[in-house]
Structures are given as structure tokens and as C-alpha cells.
């Protein structure tokens, strides 16, 4: 097998390998490298108690309760399912109802989640606060600006 033939064969082989690999990876990575789970994803798979996981979603409107100065509970939702969360600690600036958040912690039981850390997740929209209030006043405000 001559040197040029070896190379030619190898080029073809590499191309096939790369195509297969991209297909394998794209097919399999859809949900696997998630930094967090959404509440709905958690409902489908069985909830593991006492295992560190992260849940991401929005803080449900009208669910935020301040129990004491540093203890809070709220629900985290993705519009389909929601999970009840207990948290003791300091909340980040951006944390408020309707805002995205990622929480890290353990399930106390099937329904109650004990958060150890709360991250606020902000979206890719940036806009001046003056315009936002104008938009709200005129009724044009929606999340997908």
C-alpha cells in the first residue's frame, strides 16, 4: 500500500469518522450537559432525595414569602410544573418574582426542596428602566421584547 494510498484512505476514513461523531454528539447532547433541570424534567424522572441537584426556572408570581429576615420560601416554575423551595441565606440583587433563577440544593421530600444556594438568572434583554415603565404604562410590555 503506497504512502499516497495510505493518506487517501485515511482522509476518507477521517471524514466518515467526523460525520458519524458529529451526528452521535448532536443526537446525544441535547439534554445532557444541562447545568440545571427544569421542574417538568424533574417530574418525569424520579426525584432523588438527598442528592445535590440544580433546578432552573422562574420564580412564580405571588409565591414569595419572607418567613424571617433571612429565611424565604417560594415556588419555582416553568409554566407547567412548579416546585416548593425553602431557602435560608442572602438573595442576589436580581432575585424577584417573575425573574429567572437557578437554585442548588436537596429535596427534603418529594415536594419540598431545600435550597443551599440561589443564583439569579437574567435574560438576554437589556433596556433602560425609563423605557420599560413607559412600555408598561402603554400596555406594550411583554417578556419577549
Amino acid at each position, binding site marked *: 500500500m503506497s504512502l499516497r494510498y495510505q493518506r487517501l484512505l485515511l482522509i476518507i476514513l477521517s471524514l466518515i469518522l467526523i460525520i458519524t461523531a458529529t451526528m452521535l454528539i448532536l443526537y446525544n447532547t441535547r439534554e445532557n*450537559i*444541562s*447545568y440545571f*433541570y427544569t421542574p417538568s424534567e424533574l417530574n418525569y424522572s424520579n426525584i432523588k432525595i438527598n442528592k445535590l441537584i440544580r433546578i432552573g426556572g422562574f420564580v412564580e408570581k405571588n409565591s414569595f414569602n419572607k418567613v424571617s429576615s433571612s429565611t424565604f420560601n417560594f415556588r419555582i416554575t416553568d409554566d407547567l410544573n412548579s416546585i416548593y423551595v425553602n431557602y435560608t441565606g442572602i438573595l442576589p440583587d436580581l432575585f424577584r418574582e417573575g425573574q429567572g433563577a437557578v437554585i442548588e440544593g436537596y429535596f427534603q421530600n418529594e415536594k419540598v426542596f431545600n435550597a443551599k444556594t440561589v443564583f439569579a438568572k*437574567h*435574560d438576554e434583554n*437589556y433596556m433602560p428602566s425609563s423605557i420599560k415603565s413607559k412600555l408598561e404604562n402603554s400596555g406594550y410590555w411583554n417578556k419577549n421584547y
Partner: protein
Amino acid sequence: MRFLINSKRFNVFADIIFKPVLVLSIVLLIVGLIFAFFLSPDDYQQGSTVRIMYVHVPSAWLSLMTYLIMTVYSIIALAFRMPFGFIVNTAVAPIGAIFTLVCIISGSLWGKPMWGTWWVWDARLTSVAVLFIIYLIIIFINISFENVRVREKIAAIFILVGSINLPIIKFSVDWWNTLHQPATISKLSKPSIDPSMMTPLIIMTIAFIFIGITIAILRIKTEIITRENI
């Protein structure tokens, strides 16, 4: 456009454009900073902290752009045997590393008040950290081999292998759930940022590009001179 692949022509061209570029980068930086600090409005959610974006986003873009340039020059240099590509690679790698570092530092300064943490290991942040280490390794390769002709080729091959990381960085926020928000400005859709905040961002980006070009010109010229004296 021959000055992009030929060191003699580059020298001539660089001498012409260096001063304008330098002046332009300083002016743009000052204007951009004025816009960023005084003229741009507060964000409806993040308040004043959003101003970190005007440093964070340009440096992130430039760290990727620098790597992309290095990848292109590696291909050119290896495939068409143009030694100027190696010169550019050697000169530009530290600049990319600095931009990545600025991106990481400003990002964690932004993350602490907004997300509530300096650092998380989600896909975007991890891949950018990897990019930084890749830049470091390129610099290490460039200083630890004795033979110039060897190390430039090895570095180019390493750059090509490492370029697998680029699409991962770019699309990590779209492919996977991350704490990092998705891209604000993409080609396919209308940018989800208000014009009043878009202006300083663009000015700052152009300013960063010009700063990068200024340093790159200086470094490439020194690199050419060093190689002539071997």
C-alpha cells in the same frame, strides 16, 4: 491585501496606519467610556451594574475573534507555507490571553451582584476557562522550544486542534441549559437590546478592536525584527 500575508508589505502598511489607529483607539476608548458611564441609561432589571457589559462583551468577542484569526493564519501558514502566519500567531496569542482574562474577570465581577456568585461551572464559563488555558499553552509552546521553525509549526498545529473549543464556546448557551444568558446579538434575529445601550456597546467593541490592532501591530513588528536577527 498582500500586507496580510507578507511581512515586508506588512511593515510598510503598518508604518502608515499605526498612528491613525493608535489615535483612533484612544479616542474611541474615551468616547466609549463616557457613553458607558454617563450617557447610557440604567437597565430595567440590573440597574447600574449593566455597565460591566460594555467591557465584558467586547473582550469576550475579541478573545474569540483573536483565536479565529490565529486559526485562519495557522491554516494559511501550514498549507501555503507562509511564515508570516507563524509570526502573527506568536505575536497575537498573548493579546488573546489578556482579552480572555479581562472577559473572565469582568464576568465574575458582573456575576457576583447579579447571579449571586463569582463563578459557576456551567458550559459557557468552563469553555471560556479552557480557552484561557489553551492561550497559555500556546504561549508556553512559543517559549519552551529552542528551534523557532519547530515551535511555530507545533504551535500552529496545537491552535488547529484547540479550535474545536470555538464552536463549543459560541453555541454552549444555545445547546445547553446554562446559568449564562443566551447571546443578545446574533445574526438571525433582531438584537434584544435597546439602541441607547447598543451604541456604547458598539463603540466599545470598535475601540477594543482598535486597541487590539495597535498592540498587534507593535508585537508583529517586534517579532519580525527578532526573527531577522536569529
